[in-house]
């Protein structure tokens, strides 16, 4: 019977993880059609100035499922294109969500000491950049375009590029051009960095996932209200985000001095926190893992000094970041995570049972 309960908890744990992963993957798929492009690794050439920075994505054309109206998708260094059947007079809203894992950003930070390069700070900036759509090779100005920051979680940050247009004829393909200034603006937006630097080392920037959603808004749609409404929403969201950031910055200030809270604690402000520290230290650890305070820290190598010799151990990303082990990594995480959830559930149930068990009045053999 006990084994059945244990097995049930384990299965529920694994199931919860599956649900969790699924929900997480669908956070940004609000549009009609979408496509997930996992782990596009881009080569980012670092020149002597951001003004000439380029992102080269190669010439990979993705395999699009047959049941998707998006027929093809092409992502290049300075433009992307997709092909679908556009109907004359219909308006379309296209949203592209980029999820970036800048896992080498720690290196940027190290090389650019003193520069205003804090990945966590990109949340404070929302950049709009102009775009130009070529529909069947005929240039057409996009009615509305917006680049919106969504937020950072751990090593990942996402932003959405949205634009809308009305097709002026039956067409089959659209090309969105990211021109030089736009790329430059994108870099500024991402890195909040506008200066020069000396290194010329090629680095990697990883687009972990890319969502594309296309909404057919129908014929005779006036995009004016849409644009106005969306801009108002963006403005409102920005205000909320700034307020949350203010609260978040205040609450995550690790230099918590009790004196700042109230004068009553002036006399009893301890310099050390022996008891509370035992409880808060693991929580601080969790916070450091979940927060954006450790950007790009996942792939950190380890440097040790042993007998006056410096030893550098490379990070394990050379294995786990390979695309062909991504599935194995997910399964490994689900199994291990399921086991942990099972153990956690088991301990919680045991603790609950102990509360109601009158014979259990001891802590580790010590009777209370």
């Amino acid at each position, binding site marked *: 019977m006990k084994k059945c309960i244990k097995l049930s908890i384990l299965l529920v744990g694994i199931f919860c993880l599956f649900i*969790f992963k699924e929900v997480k993957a669908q956070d940004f798929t609000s549009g009609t059609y979408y496509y997930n492009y996992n782990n596009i690794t881009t080569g980012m050439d670092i020149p002597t100035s951001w003004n000439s920075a380029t992102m080269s994505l190669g010439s990979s054309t993705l395999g699009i499922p047959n049941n998707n109206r998006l027929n093809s998708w092409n992502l290049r260094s300075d433009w992307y294109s997709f092909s679908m059947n556009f109907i004359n007079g219909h308006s379309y809203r296209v949203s592209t969500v980029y999820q970036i894992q800048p896992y080498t950003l720690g290196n940027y930070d190290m090389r650019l000491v003193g520069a205003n390069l804090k990945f966590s700070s990109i949340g404070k900036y929302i950049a709009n950049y102009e775009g130009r759509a070529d529909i069947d090779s005929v240039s057409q100005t996009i009615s509305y375009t917006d680049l919106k920051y969504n937020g950072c979680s751990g090593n990942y940050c996402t932003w959405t590029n949205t634009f809308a247009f009305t097709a002026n004829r039956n067409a089959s393909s659209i090309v969105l051009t990211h021109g030089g200034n736009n790329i430059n603006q994108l870099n500024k937006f991402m890195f909040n960095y506008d200066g020069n630097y000396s290194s010329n080392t090629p680095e990697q920037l990883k687009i972990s996932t890319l969502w594309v959603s296309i909404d057919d808004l129908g014929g005779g749609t006036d995009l004016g209200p849409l644009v106005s409404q969306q801009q108002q929403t963006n403005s409102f969201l920005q205000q909320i985000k700034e307020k949350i950031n203010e609260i978040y910055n205040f609450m*995550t200030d690790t230099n918590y001095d009790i004196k700042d809270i109230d004068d009553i604690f002036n006399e009893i402000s301890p310099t050390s926190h022996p008891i509370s520290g035992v409880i808060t230290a693991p929580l*601080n650890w969790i916070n450091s893992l979940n927060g954006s305070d450790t950007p790009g820290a996942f792939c950190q190598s380890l440097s040790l000094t042993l007998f006056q010799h410096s030893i550098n151990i490379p*990070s394990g990303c050379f294995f786990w970041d390979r695309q062909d082990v991504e599935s194995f990594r997910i399964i490994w995480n689900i199994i291990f995570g399921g086991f942990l959830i099972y153990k956690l559930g088991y301990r919680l149930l045991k603790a609950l049972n102990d509360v109601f068990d009158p014979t259990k009045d001891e802590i580790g053999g010590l009777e209370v």
Partner: protein
Amino acid sequence: MISIMFDFLISLFIRIVTIAFIPIDTIVSEYMPNVDSALSKITTFFNYLQNYSSFIMSYTGLYRDIISICITLFVATITLPTLVHGIKLGLKWWEELV
């Protein structure tokens, strides 16, 4: 947004715990310096571990969520028995008083 709220809740809990434990922390640090030193080592140990968690994660291939669950399990393991028996002790005292 959820991540920020999660961080916010943890930070709030940390502050509440810190404030709630001020009297005990003060007593321990003032009158039991050896205990203070010993317990501070635990905090130092966790701070030390923070430096290597990313390196370990890079080799284990575990997601941050899984690591968080792992740490939560560790915290639950060391705190739940104390919490349970604290509740029972409190109830026992309450019964004696009433």
